[in-house]
């Protein structure tokens, strides 16, 4: 069984790769390459896979999941310029793809102390027209 939790954060980012020329950056990222940055209201959907505990009827403690997301993701990302203020993106372009992978890496080990549940997927919606999904691995 899969249970999903949704949280939101707002942040700004600059989509420019240091290995590319200005012209290439403009071509690859379009308006998102603006060096002065731009921002989004991101929606993060975290899906957890597991079986309900026979006693509690719950796959995992949702309050604890909320705390993990708050401490490991929202407190780091919310109302920040991702390129400058989130260490993961010092040398990595904070595209929505890389944001999903970074969120996975931040929370995977902390999902469930009991070993009953595991992280299944991280979906990040950058706009209502674009989202990515990462399920771990290469």
């Amino acid at each position: 069984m899969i249970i999903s939790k949704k949280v939101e954060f707002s942040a700004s980012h600059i989509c420019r790769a240091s290995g590319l020329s200005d012209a290439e950056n403009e071509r690859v990222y379009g308006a998102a390459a603006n060096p002065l940055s731009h921002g989004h209201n991101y929606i993060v959907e975290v899906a957890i896979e597991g079986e309900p505990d026979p006693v509690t009827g719950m796959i995992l403690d949702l309050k604890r999941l909320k705390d993990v997301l708050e401490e490991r993701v929202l407190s780091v990302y919310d109302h920040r310029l991702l390129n400058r203020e989130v260490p993961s993106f010092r040398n990595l372009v904070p595209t929505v793809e890389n944001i999903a992978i970074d969120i996975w890496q931040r929370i995977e080990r902390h999902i469930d102390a009991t070993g009953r549940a595991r992280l299944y997927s991280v979906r990040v919606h950058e706009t209502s027209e674009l989202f990515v999904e990462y399920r771990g691995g290469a």
Partner: protein
Amino acid sequence: MVSVSRKYAFCATHRLHAAGLSEVENRAVYGKCNNPHGHGHNYEVEITVAGPVDAVTGRAVDLTALDALAMREVIGPLRYRNLNEEVEAFRTVVPTTENLTFEVDRRLRAVWPEVFPGGVPRLEKIRIWETERNICEVGGL
């Protein structure tokens, strides 16, 4: 591997009427969608691709290329059209959301390797919303 889903929209007219059925049967099967004058929808098309994240760009898909492809093959040819009358594929096939989803999938797959050499990222799934409550999906099943 990351999957990326991108949504587009177009408006079009269609009429659901199967040539092999009688007038009565058509009305029974399609209800008010069988109205001989046709009717329209605001369609939404979601294209999902899957591939590795490029180490330099941080992208799994060139969105500029995907947008151009979607515009050229799907949105441009279908928007503000009468699907039955103006889209070749629906001269003999009923433009249900199911058949429309197959048609969009076929159009994209036909040119996918030209736009994305080696088929990377791969075309994973097409979803079409005919209304907020009618959604059809092909691929990725």
